[in-house]
Each structure stands twice: as C-alpha cells, then as structure tokens.
C-alpha cells in the first residue's frame, strides 16, 4: 500500500482553489447578482406567537407606488411541506393560523427595498390572539394550549430505541447516576444571510438562484411546493457565504420568492435581515436530556437510559431525525452493553429548529461527557482513565449494530491530554482548570437519514488540451471540498490539481445528489471521484496503448500529466490521448461513477438496528480555562483538538475545519443561545447573541490522528462536524475542574457561574 509520503497530491497543504477570487472580492454571492427589472421582496411576519388569522387586507399595500405584487396564501398552491417525510404542516404563507412570532403571513415585491418595507406596514391583518406555550414540558401538560387541533398533547413525535437490557444493567451496577442537561436553540449565524432570486419565464420555467449547500434538494422541494415538474426548475448556486447545514433545505422565503415572481413576471430577490436570521431560520433544536447511567465501581459503563425532550417549535422539520441522532450518540459513544433511549418531540409556539453542524450530536455529547466527569469523581477515578477504559475500539460492533472500521478515540484522548498537561494541571489550583471530552460522529453521512441512501454520482471529462472538468452534486460551502476532490483526481491521473475545474452549481447539469451534509463529501464524493478518475484513466490508457504501441494497459502508468510505458521514456500527453479517443474511437473521454457504501444501510425502521454509516470519525478535545470569581466570566486559555480523520487529504483544510468547529463549539459553551420572552426572541442581533470574535479565541492546537480507514478514499474520512461537538463539554468539564460546581445548562454565562460560586 502506498504510504502518505509517496503520494504526489494526497496529503499536500494546498490553499483552496477559489481563494484568489475570494480575497479580491471578485467572487459573486447571491446579493451581488442583479437582473434587469428585478424586484425586491419582503415578508410580513406574525407578531403573535399564536393567533387565528381572521382577515388580511392588502389593498393599501397594493396601491403604494412602486409595489408590483402583494401575495397571501391564496396566491400559493397551499402545499404543506417539511424536509423529513413525516407530517408536513408548514405552508409558505399561512392562511388560518400563525404559530410563532415570525410566521409568514404575506409578502410584497416592489421596485426597491424601502418601498417593499413600507408596503408591509400597509398590509392590515386582523388577528385573534390565542393562548400560547413556549416550554416543551409545559406544552405536554393536559391544560396546555393546543397548537394543532388534531394533536392533543402537543407531541409531534416519539422515537424510542432499546438494545440489551437496561434493567439488568442497572441491577448489576454499583453506582447509578441521574442528571438533566439543557441546551438552547443556536442560530447558524452565517455571515451571509439566507437569500434567493426567483425568476419565471413566460412558459413557466423557473430559474432559482440561491445560497444553498444542496441545489438538488431545492429543486425537488420547489417542485413540490409550486406543483411544477422538476424538469422545469433550474437551481443555480453562486458563492455561498457560510452554510453549516442550515442552507440545506428550503425556507418558506424560497417558494415565496417564486410565487412573487410568478405574479409579477419579473425576477424577485429576497434577502433576510439579520433579525430574520436570528428569529426564523431554524437553528439547533433546544433539548432537555435526562441521562441515567449505571457503572461498576471500577468504572465499567454498563447501562445508559436517556429521555430526550426536543423543543420542536411550531412546525415540523427535522426534529425526528435529529432527536434520533442524539439518542444514538448517547447509545454508541463508549462501549455500553445496555442502552434505552426515548425522544419526545414537542410542539411549542416558538421558532422551529432545523439542521446545524453536528445535528443532535452537540446536545448528546454535552450530556454524556459532562456526566462522565461526574462519574469519574464519584468513583475516585481520573476522568481520562474512565474514558480510556470504555473507549470504542477499531473493529467493534456496537449493540446498535454499528461497525467501526477505524477508530482513533484512544489516541485522540491520550494525545490531547498529554498536550494540555493533563496530569500536571488537573489538581485544582486557583480558578484554573482543565477538562476533556470525546466525540463520536459519522465520518461519511448516513443512510436512511433523509429518507434515502447515502450516495454520490460524479462526472469527469478531459478536454483536448488535457485539462479536466469534474462535475459533482455536492457544493463546496467554504470548507474546500472542491479542492480535495481535485487532489483525488490529481493523484490518480498525475495531473496538477489546478488543471481540474469543479462545477457543482447548476441542477441543469449536476448529477442528482443529496448535497453537502453529514461530513460526507470527503468520503462519499471522494470515493466516487476516485472511481471516476480510474475510469477516465482506463479510457486514456486504451488510446495510449495504441499511440505508444504498448502490449496492454498494464504496462502504462501516469506521471507528470503524461502517460508512460513504465520503465521507459515513451510517453503521450493526456490531452493528446483524449484527442485520439475522439478522432479514432469516435468518443470523447468522459466517465460517470456512482459510489454508495457497500457496508452501510438504512437502519431497521422498527428497531433502529444496523450499521448506517460506512465509517465513524472520533476525536477528543482538552480545554484549559480560567474563571474570574468577580465577574463569573470564563476565559478559555487553550484548546487542544485531536481528531481522527483517517488520513488528511489536505492538512491545511483539515486544520481549518478543526479551528472553525472549535470556535463554534466555544460559542455554544459560553455565549450563544436564543432567549425568548413570551415567545419573542429578544436577542436578535450579534450584540445580544454574540459569536466568538478574534480577541476571545484561545490558542488552538490541532492534532491530526490518522487511523487509515479501510473504506475511505485514500483512507480518509470526514471532519466537518466533529470539531464542533467536543468543545462545549470539554470547556464545561474544565469549568468544573476550576470551580468545583457543575453547570448543566448551556451557555455557561457569567451569571450562572456567579450563582454557582
């Protein structure tokens, strides 16, 4: 097997290919695009958390000079939609009821933003306010206001899993721990707001430009909501200004833009205000996790039982899948023979949640990893030793049926602990402390999560001059996936990575795909690209054989962008070989490849058993903090982030993912979280819902652990999400080590610390 040192492109620190266009300001994002006659749309949103809509009067708004259309639900197809195929209950514009502050009621298209805003003020809506409920535990009570007529207890769904026998496990345990942990809604805070431009032509073809990580998903969803065939919809994606999972599925604003365009016959642009970003874009689901764990006195985990209460918010989106992920992380992190989980998903009159980097992983890990330290302390055991004792190992099959082909958890824990100075610093001195946390996440998306498999289809073509075009359905959302895919092509064909251009931005030609999510692009798309490059190589070798008069293709090899007879200086350029295929064989050099992991399948729909990811990425982060006893402020001094990535195709970009993930994890731990009063988000800007800035970032040191995954392309696996997941519990554990009090609700703000001291 080739070692990393022998690769020509794999393992190289190459800057992202689009870097130059980004640093010069040349790259075009959605809001940089305009079309002749384009109109500007704004949405009228409910000021009430729960109300009946009795009447909407749009006459005054329509009469305002410069207003070209005002629409309500009657101007739409009234299709209820939601991403996961269960009980869709949200329409683009509501006609009967509104169920959270920010719910969409009407929309306007006008000649400029100011006119559109003025028009909104002229729309008269007669609401009948209804009693509302905001807390999921309150919402489940028998006397709580009913948010849906046909849903008596406001429970949108339940998901339960049961493996082994937890009663037996608790019976055998020497100690049982029960704790409750809480996490808030976390908005994505992409610096570029959600935005789109919709344009219908006169025969009802729709072109839809949108900041999205999943153009195909948008094409499908718009087709459903607009009731037009997918073939009439073209989704085009410009440069994206951040996504993190939150730009994967349509928001109501997307079909609203399309309906406005249909009515006006003009392109219509919508761009969320920052306030709309904080109040309506569906961040990380808030959860309450009750965790009960049984252990032996020498630290062996025997049983885990979890009850997860997810605040669904007002409408259905992804809560079931995400709550299930929270459950399965609780069930599979560490070797635990008996687990039982129950997730209850509850409607409330608040902003409804959605996907955000890590899905339900951060909530699960905050609970599990906080409790591990509680357990270690009670047992008189070192918190690191407790983790090592129970760590997942390569080759494990878990009780849930997960098959773990590669696992660097032990190495990550040991190296992170060593680097932070674990043994020296754990003895509590002053107000400083260190903490550690593990992470288990998918290394390559998952099967069955979005109601389908986990695959990627890609196309590769060779131009007559030897340069190449790679076409994929997965968007580069800033993490650099385009670049590493070029490195894969480069390695197989020995061309320069710069000679490969990636296109992924237009559903007219990109393969149907599930898009960028679940840390999957490196593994799933990378494997597909490896296959397609090998197919192209075979086609080129067929031509080269004839040109070079070689006996057969087994004599040929690629080097320096040319094809050689191995051991000789006889060679032909790749472009020349491609030309030969056209001239002599009558076919251009193009190939298609599809990769779907052979070792993963959707889990059993009833029991949840089964290996649903082809591989898993592990990691551990150690944090050192200092707590100010006067202000309660937690200062993070350093974070050591050790991540098992299989093999780093591009270490520069892997570091970028780790560092960026840590920054988001730190925000989750210390600052971020939507705060509501009577259902209204009261911290709806960057001052009141702050994210980490440059002066607050601690020193970060990354440790890339390479476990050489047997299934990954060049043994690589995903790293997009794990770095976010370990940070908050590592910090929480460090705070405990510093001040001796456990804070079980995020964010760990100064007032909570002061109260605890």
């Amino acid at each position, binding site marked *: 097997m080739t070692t990393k040192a022998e690769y020509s492109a794999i393992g190289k620190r190459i*800057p992202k290919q689009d870097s130059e266009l980004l*640093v010069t*300001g*040349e790259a075009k*994002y959605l*809001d940089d695009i305009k079309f002749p006659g384009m109109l500007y749309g704004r949405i009228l949103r409910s000021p009430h958390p729960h109300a009946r809509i009795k009447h909407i009067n749009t006459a005054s708004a329509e009469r305002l000079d410069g207003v070209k259309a005002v629409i309500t639900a009657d101007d739409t197809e009234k299709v209820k939609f939601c991403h996961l195929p269960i009980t869709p209950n949200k329409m683009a514009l509501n006609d009967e009821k509104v169920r959270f502050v920010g719910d969409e009621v009407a929309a306007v298209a006008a000649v400029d933003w100011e006119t559109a805003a003025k028009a909104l003020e002229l729309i008269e809506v007669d609401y009948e306010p209804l009693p509302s409920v905001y807390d999921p535990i309150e919402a489940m009570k028998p006397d709580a206001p009913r948010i849906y007529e046909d849903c008596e207890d406001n429970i949108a769904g339940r998901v339960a899993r049961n493996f082994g026998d937890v009663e037996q496990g608790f019976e055998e345990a020497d100690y049982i721990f029960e704790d409750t942990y809480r996490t808030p809604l976390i908005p*994505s805070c992409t610096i570029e707001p959600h935005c789109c431009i919709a344009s219908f032509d006169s025969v009802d073809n729709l072109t839809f430009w949108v900041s999205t990580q999943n153009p195909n998903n948008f094409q499908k969803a718009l087709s459903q909501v607009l009731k037009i065939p997918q073939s009439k919809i073209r989704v085009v994606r410009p440069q994206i200004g*951040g996504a993190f999972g939150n730009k994967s599925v349509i928001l109501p604003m997307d079909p609203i833009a399309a309906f406005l365009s249909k009515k006006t016959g003009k392109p219509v642009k919508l761009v969320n205000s920052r306030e709309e970003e904080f109040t309506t874009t569906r961040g990380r689901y808030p959860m309450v996790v009750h965790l009960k764990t049984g252990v032996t006195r020498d630290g062996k985990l025997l049983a885990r039982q979890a009850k997860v209460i997810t605040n669904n918010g007002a409408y259905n989106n992804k809560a079931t899948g995400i709550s299930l992920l929270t459950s399965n992380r609780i069930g599979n992190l560490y070797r635990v023979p008996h687990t039982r989980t129950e997730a209850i998903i509850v409607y409330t009159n608040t902003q409804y949640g959605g996907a955000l980097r890590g899905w339900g992983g951060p909530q699960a890990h905050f609970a599990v990893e906080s409790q591990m330290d509680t357990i270690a302390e009670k047992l008189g055991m070192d918190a690191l030793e407790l983790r090592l004792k129970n760590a997942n190992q390569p080759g494990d099959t878990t009780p849930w049926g997960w098959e773990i082909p590669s696992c660097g958890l032990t190495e990550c824990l040991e190296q992170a602990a060593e680097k932070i100075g674990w043994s020296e610093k754990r003895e509590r001195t002053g107000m400083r402390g260190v903490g550690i946390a593990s992470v288990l996440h998918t290394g390559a998306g998952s099967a069955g999560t979005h109601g389908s498999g986990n695959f990627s289809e890609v196309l590769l073509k060779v131009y007559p001059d030897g340069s190449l075009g790679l076409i994929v359905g997965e968007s580069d959302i800033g993490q650099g996936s385009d670049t590493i895919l070029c490195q894969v092509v480069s390695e197989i064909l020995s061309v320069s990575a710069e000679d490969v251009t990636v296109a992924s931005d237009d559903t007219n030609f990109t393969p149907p795909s599930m898009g960028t999510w679940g840390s999957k692009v490196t593994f799933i798309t990378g494997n597909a690209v490896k296959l397609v490059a090998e197919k192209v190589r075979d086609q080129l070798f067929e031509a080269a054989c004839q040109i070079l008069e070689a006996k057969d293709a087994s004599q040929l090899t690629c080097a320096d962008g040319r094809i050689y007879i191995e051991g000789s200086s006889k060679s032909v350029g790749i472009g020349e070989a491609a030309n030969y295929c056209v001239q002599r064989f009558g076919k251009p050099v193009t190939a298609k490849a599809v990769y779907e992991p052979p070792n993963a399948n959707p889990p059993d729909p009833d029991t949840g058993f089964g290996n649903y990811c082809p591989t898993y990425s592990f990691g551990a982060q150690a944090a050192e903090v200092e707590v100010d006893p006067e202000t309660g402020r937690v200062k993070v001094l350093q974070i050591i982030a050790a991540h098992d990535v299989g093999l780093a195709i591009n270490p520069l970009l892997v570091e970028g993912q780790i560092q960026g993930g840590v920054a988001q994890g730190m925000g989750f731990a210390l600052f971020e979280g939507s705060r509501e009063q009577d259902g209204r988000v009261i911290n709806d800007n960057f001052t009141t819902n702050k994210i980490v800035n440059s002066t607050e*970032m601690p020193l970060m040191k990354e440790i890339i652990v390479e476990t050489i995954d047997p299934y990954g392309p060049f043994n690589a696996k995903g790293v997009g999400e794990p770095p976010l997941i370990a940070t908050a519990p590592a910090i929480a554990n460090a705070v405990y080590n510093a001040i001796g009090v456990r804070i079980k609700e995020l964010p760990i703000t100064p007032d909570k610390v002061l109260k605890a001291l």
Partner: protein
Amino acid sequence: MAKIKLSVNGKVLELSVNPQQTLVDAIREDIELTGTKKGCGTGDCGACTVLLDGKPVNSCLVFAIEADGREVTTIEGLKSGDELHPLQKAFIEHGAVQCGFCTSGMIISAEALLRQTPNPTEEQAKVAVSGNLCRCTGYQKIIEAITSVDPGQGHIRGEAMSSTPGGSAAENRNDD
C-alpha cells in the same frame, strides 16, 4: 438627491445619492463594487468594512453623503494591476479564507492596521479585526496571515488622487 464627489480606490467619482443612503449601498449599487458585503446592517459584523480616509469604518453605518470629498478604499483597491496585495497573498497561503464572506472586511481592517503598525503583534492583529466576525475559520489562520506580512514589502500606503477635470477630491474636501 445630493451630489457628492469622492475618491474610490484612487479614482474620483461623482455620484447622485439619496441623503438616507448608506455608503455600503452606494458602493455596491451605484459604483457597482460588490466586494464589500452586507451581513447585518447594524455595524455588528464588519463585513462592510471599508477605509474612509485610511480609517476602517462599518460602511453600513456611514451615510454616503458623509463620504463627500473623502477617500474610500474597498477590497477592489488593494490589488496593484495583476499583483495581489501582500495581505491577499498571505490569506491564501495560510488558509485564512473559507466561505470568504467576511474576507473583504477582514483584509481591509488588517490593511488599516498595517498602515499604522507595519509589524503588529498577535494581540494587535486580534484587536484590529475584533469587529470583523467570522463564523468559519476560528480566526487563528487569519491572525497568522496578518502577522506574516513582511513589513519590508511595499504595499499601498494611501491612495494618490488621480488628477481629473474638476480638481482632486482632496482639494474639495469639506473639513469636518
């Protein structure tokens, strides 16, 4: 509508602006330089940072008419012909760019720092970009990029006014 005359990246321009119009909108819509971005509209994120007479400002908080008679530098003004500015090169090499949306504002803030402090410490660099929010990178590579720029490399020290009919904006500047 008010008529203003300002220098943008060394070129003197005359614009007709609405008194309520922000500088960022004038830059993006009237002058059609879209490198400067809008992330919040309230001066919290820094994506709209430009230099106004060499000082970094959130252009969403500046009225276009305030730029009358003054020099504006946007991200488009940093490249010298085909030659990338040392900061731009450093951001590329250090992997300091991911989605790129904060990058224009980030580089402009860094440029303002380097003009004053050619060899900044890590702390100084952190403070200089503390008003530029980034959700992707975690800032570490951005700081590495900024502090890696060799103070000996020539880089833009201030816009020279090109002489155009009507005199330079510097001559016409209204003193505040």
